[in-house]
């Protein structure tokens, strides 16, 4: 085995040796400086307000007036009717692609998976207990949940493997491990994508230091490697039949591009011209006819393209006046709009303005909101866009029509996966 081949295996130990040294000499300086410094009071962290015992005690001590009791009973009747209605709707699976009704938002905090209600701003535990449960991925029919489960006390930074992947139903029941079958040379699980029929999951994991694809059968956890002979950085099924996969990869010279391949493997074909060495984003349209992507051209400008999957015709969408960069495309559930981020300058701190543009380039589009958010996704019904604030990871909802923004009142922990909005039958 050559040094190059040993590189990945030995990297942790070599980095330990490379960085080994005595405790830094500025330790005393830090200790003295912090000793003279006040801590930020706990009450200034909103998440630490109102311990449960305090809240409960206050509620019990206040006598309820008769009229209040009547109001509460009326509210309970209304709530029961709403819950009954939701249960009826939840009994039917959502269509895998296209618009669906908005369900709850799954996210991870404090090692639990919670469901947040975007209407009321309240949330409840879906998957709890002493285990560390993170990275919720709801199936496209809204009925199942894939998540990472690690042992109690496992720090957030601990690598997850296929043995840590678990499934549950959307009500938090029927929890079971998906697979423990590790492939030779496989280390970290990187990403998971549900297939439209919710019967299989496309898994990206590092195998011999290279990101590669496997499909996992949800019924029995069996795995099949999708051998593409090249690294796969991002992958997505092509609706509506999921018989093809679009993925981002590099050629032998390190130049990136988009490729398409049959889901049963075979020889990938290039979907785009070579797109340089910069990373880029792409999204497959909900009806499966086009792929939107953003790439940097020779002048350094980031442009949004739409390529037709059948004809291969690649069209650059016009830039808005004043915008120098336009990227990170995301299709609306009905396929009529592309959500993009626009920026004037990307050399320093970037101010991104979210905008909706027409995928055929016929309309100039309209700006929605300036934000520093890194993550955003469409509501299943297309009425709004969910964004994650960079500073505190709180969730905001921007309405697609008016562009108004409101806070949803809950926030996932950093590094525990993106929030995932449940799709329900319309």
């Amino acid at each position: 085995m050559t040094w190059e081949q040993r590189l990945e295996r030995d990297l942790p130990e070599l980095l330990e040796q490379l960085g080994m040294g005595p405790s830094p000499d500025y330790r005393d300086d830090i200790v003295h400086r912090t000793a003279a410094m006040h801590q930020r009071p706990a009450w200034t962290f909103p998440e630490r307000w109102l311990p449960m015992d305090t809240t409960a005690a206050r509620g019990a001590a206040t006598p309820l007036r008769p009229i209040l009791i009547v109001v509460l009973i009326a509210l309970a009747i209304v709530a029961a009717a709403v819950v009954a209605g939701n249960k009826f709707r939840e009994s039917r699976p959502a269509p895998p692609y296209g618009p669906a009704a908005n369900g709850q938002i799954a996210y991870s905090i404090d090692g639990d998976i919670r469901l947040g209600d975007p209407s009321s701003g309240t949330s409840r535990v879906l998957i709890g207990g002493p285990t560390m449960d993170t990275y919720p991925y709801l199936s496209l029919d809204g009925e199942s949940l894939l998540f990472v489960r690690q042992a109690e006390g496992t720090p957030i930074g601990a690598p997850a493997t296929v043995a840590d992947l678990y499934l549950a139903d959307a009500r938090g029941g029927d929890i079971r491990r998906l697979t423990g079958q590790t492939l030779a040379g496989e280390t970290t699980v990187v990403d998971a994508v549900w297939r439209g029929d919710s019967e299989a999951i496309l898994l990206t994991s590092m195998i011999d230091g290279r990101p590669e694809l496997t499909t996992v059968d949800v019924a029995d956890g069996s795995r099949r490697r999708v051998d593409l002979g090249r690294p796969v950085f991002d992958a997505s099924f092509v609706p509506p039949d999921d018989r093809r996969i679009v993925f981002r990869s590099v050629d032998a010279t390190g130049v990136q591009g988009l490729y398409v391949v049959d889901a049963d493997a075979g020889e990938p074909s290039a979907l785009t011209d070579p797109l340089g060495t910069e990373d880029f984003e792409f999204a497959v349209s909900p009806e499966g006819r086009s792929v939107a992507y953003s790439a940097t051209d020779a002048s350094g400008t980031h442009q949004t393209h739409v390529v037709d999957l059948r004809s291969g015709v690649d069209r650059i969408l016009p830039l808005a006046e004043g915008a120098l960069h336009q990227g990170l495309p995301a299709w609306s559930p009905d396929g009529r709009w592309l959500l993009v981020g626009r920026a004037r300058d990307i050399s320093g701190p970037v101010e991104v303005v979210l905008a909706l543009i027409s995928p055929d380039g016929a309309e100039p589009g309209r700006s929605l909101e300036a934000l520093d958010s890194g993550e955003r996704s469409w509501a299943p019904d297309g009425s709004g866009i969910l964004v994650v604030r960079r500073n505190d990871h709180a969730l905001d909802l921007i309405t697609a029509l008016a562009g108004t923004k409101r806070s949803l009142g809950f926030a996932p922990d950093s590094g525990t996966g993106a929030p995932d909005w449940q799709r329900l039958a319309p």
Partner: protein
Amino acid sequence: VDQRGLVERAREGDHDAFTLLVDLSIARLDTAARLVLRDRELARDAVQETLIRAWRDLPGLRDPARFDAWLHRLTVNACLDLARRRRRRVIEVELPRIDLPGLPDPSGELADRQLLDEALRRLDDRHRAVVVLHYYLGMPLPEVAAALRIPAGTAKSRLHYALASMRAAVAADPPAANTAPEGQLA
């Protein structure tokens, strides 16, 4: 050492407990910052900023079991903030000594470390950060992506590119037997 107990005490304002937490973590944070930034003084600044912020914001940490992960994220953000500011000025990069006394050091391991040092030095900050976070601090790639505020696919491609570049650097520059720099300026 009961780290959880120390975190709970420090969170209540016990500075002696915080000092013990500093002693437990500072060497690892300093190493990670040096590996990412390749500059001893900048690393020092990053770790100081990290630990000062950790002391100030400890009352906001809800789960003491997450102290290490929280501290790593603070360190990463401090390193990247400094790296962004550093791009505006030219600096001399000091390579750390790799022939530390008192360590078992067969010639093969020494050559490996020298090769790794060279290969790491050729990466830019963004790629080096992914390597250090993933392989030194043990973060899974999705956590690396979140810490660096980049999509998971970008983290994947940066790690792949970094490993490929390091392999290429090693292949192009085979180890010189039994030699090691004493510490030098690049």
